[in-house]
């Protein structure tokens, strides 16, 4: 054997890297992240600088996307607002993955009464509307990023837990688990070494889709006033503030609205592309 065949992993990542949906959506996400994280350098104006003359100013060379009711630069506010949306989307998903996946995988692998208890606890979490959770976390934690992230992670965790449980249930039946037991690995070690790695692909796909969901949910919460209070910039909040001025100055509504669409679309496409590349099909999602 002269040249070793490409390993499974190498060919898998090549499939991911060459997938068009994955490529373009990652590029778009990268641009969004760079623009919002670097909003301090990129945006032409401070997001909270009031300029009476620029109230509802139409887009021009100075105000590329025009001005809002208070004469603040719409472009700058949209760029800064993205920080909140992306941060909430990514953090809420991260927390949900970190709690939900090990919890679900544990329940599925151990089975029995432990599984029943965890599953029922997860079921209890499912029917709570995100708005109610957001109100409660806001009351407990006060205004801030943390309360929104917590509310959304509570909504997302059950989905990750259920998926990881389903995956662990099927993996636990496979012969290599018995072989691992036969070689003396304890339950915890088998979970970490042999069960969780098999959850990786479906979790990654679901995470991308869940970021999209969280961005949309964050926008809705901010729109309802459950996000950061003004004058903090946020897509949902700005949308709400400008709603009544839509006919007078449509750019004030279109800019944050289009930003939400773009971000949600990017993460949805990423999840879709990953699913195609991993070839998991519709079994898990």
């Amino acid at each position, binding site marked *: *054997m002269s040249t*070793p*065949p490409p*390993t*499974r*992993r190498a060919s898998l990542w090549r499939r991911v890297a060459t997938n068009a949906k994955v490529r373009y959506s990652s590029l778009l996400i990268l641009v969004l992240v760079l623009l919002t994280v670097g909003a301090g350098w990129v945006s032409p104006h401070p997001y909270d600088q009031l300029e009476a003359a620029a109230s509802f100013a139409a887009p021009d060379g100075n105000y590329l996307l025009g001005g809002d009711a208070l004469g603040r630069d719409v472009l700058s506010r949209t760029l800064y607002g993205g920080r909140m949306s992306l941060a909430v989307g990514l953090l809420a998903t991260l927390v949900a993955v970190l709690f939900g996946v090990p919890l679900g995988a544990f329940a599925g692998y151990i*089975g*029995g009464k432990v599984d029943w208890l965890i599953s029922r606890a997860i079921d209890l979490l499912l029917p709570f509307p995100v708005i109610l959770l957001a109100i409660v976390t806001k009351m407990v934690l006060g205004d801030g990023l943390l309360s929104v992230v917590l509310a959304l992670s509570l909504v997302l965790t059950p989905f990750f837990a259920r998926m990881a449980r389903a995956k662990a249930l099927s993996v636990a039946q*496979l*012969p*290599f688990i*018995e*072989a*691992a*037991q*036969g*070689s*003396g*690995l*304890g339950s915890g*070690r088998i979970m970490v*070494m*042999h069960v969780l*790695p*098999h959850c*990786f692909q479906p979790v990654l796909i679901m995470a991308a889709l869940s970021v999209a969901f969280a961005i949309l949910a964050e926008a809705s919460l901010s729109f309802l006033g459950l996000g950061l209070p003004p004058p903090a910039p946020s897509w949902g909040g700005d949308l709400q503030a400008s709603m009544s001025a839509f006919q007078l100055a449509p750019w004030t509504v279109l800019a944050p609205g289009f930003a939400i669409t773009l971000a949600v679309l990017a993460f949805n496409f990423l999840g879709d592309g990953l699913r195609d590349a991993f070839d998991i099909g519709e079994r898990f999602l």
Partner: protein
Amino acid sequence: MSADVPALNVDDLSVDIRGVTVLDHVSLALSPGEALGLVGESGCGKSMTALAILGLLPRGARIGGGSVRLRGQELLGASEDVLCKVRGGAIGMIFQEPGACLDPVMRIGRQIGESLRLHRGLTGAAQDAELRKLLLEVGLNETDRVARAYAHELSGGMQQRAMIAMALAGEPVVLIADEPTTALDARIASQILDLLDQLRRERGLALLLISHDLAVIGGRCDRVIVMYAGRAVEAAPAAQVFTDARHPYTAALIAASPGIAGVAPKTPLRDIPGQLPAPGGASDGCAFAERCTLARPACVKRTPRWSTLETGRGARCLQYEEGW
């Protein structure tokens, strides 16, 4: 080690699953360097015996009685900590389908390395050196490629060799091979059996070779235990079992086996009429009675006890108790 203390001693081991007896007073003893064959049809309790020895019974299964001693140390009822050290440590285990028994998303080297870390505390360069030694020992000479490979990149024979290396990682005293060649083609199967043979001699391993195939067991084992419906029905030196079977089931099994190299006389193959009774079906009588050509009315009424026929030989059949 003194010859008096067997490496592994299973005494009157009984297991039931939700009240249904699946192992009924199974006994076996295994000395260092010895190969013991466990043979019988699928579902006769061979694998259950192996799992019970390791304390890996499926959910719902319960030990009904007996003992399993490893070098004198009782394993039944031992704590999970003790058992985890024994599994893959003093007792290595090889399973039937090597392809399915290796984690598809983990490199071979890492899987074997995990056993080295777990049972011998080896990490880093020491682990790597030992890994290479093990791979060479089982005949995987391209150590770099194999260690970096995933299971599906190896052939069936190489996968089984890797499984054997993993079982050897804990420096076992006893090696249990449960149908190690069933998933392999004939030529590779005989290579794997040769390897097990060689390891047994070189390492002084006590080898428990489980197979449904008498031909696999025949040439490789010192002694053979034939199982039927959860009971050991005959124990004999391997050299004698083919020419001088004492239990009707053993005789029928041999008659149904094609070409057992140079041991069994060539006769037309004969099927065993009927089928293995469902577990727990009959509580009284000999489980083989309804398929047995020698059966008499007493056979369905009374469960035969173990009769010692001569040193190292025994059978569980009424003809020896009643002196037919």
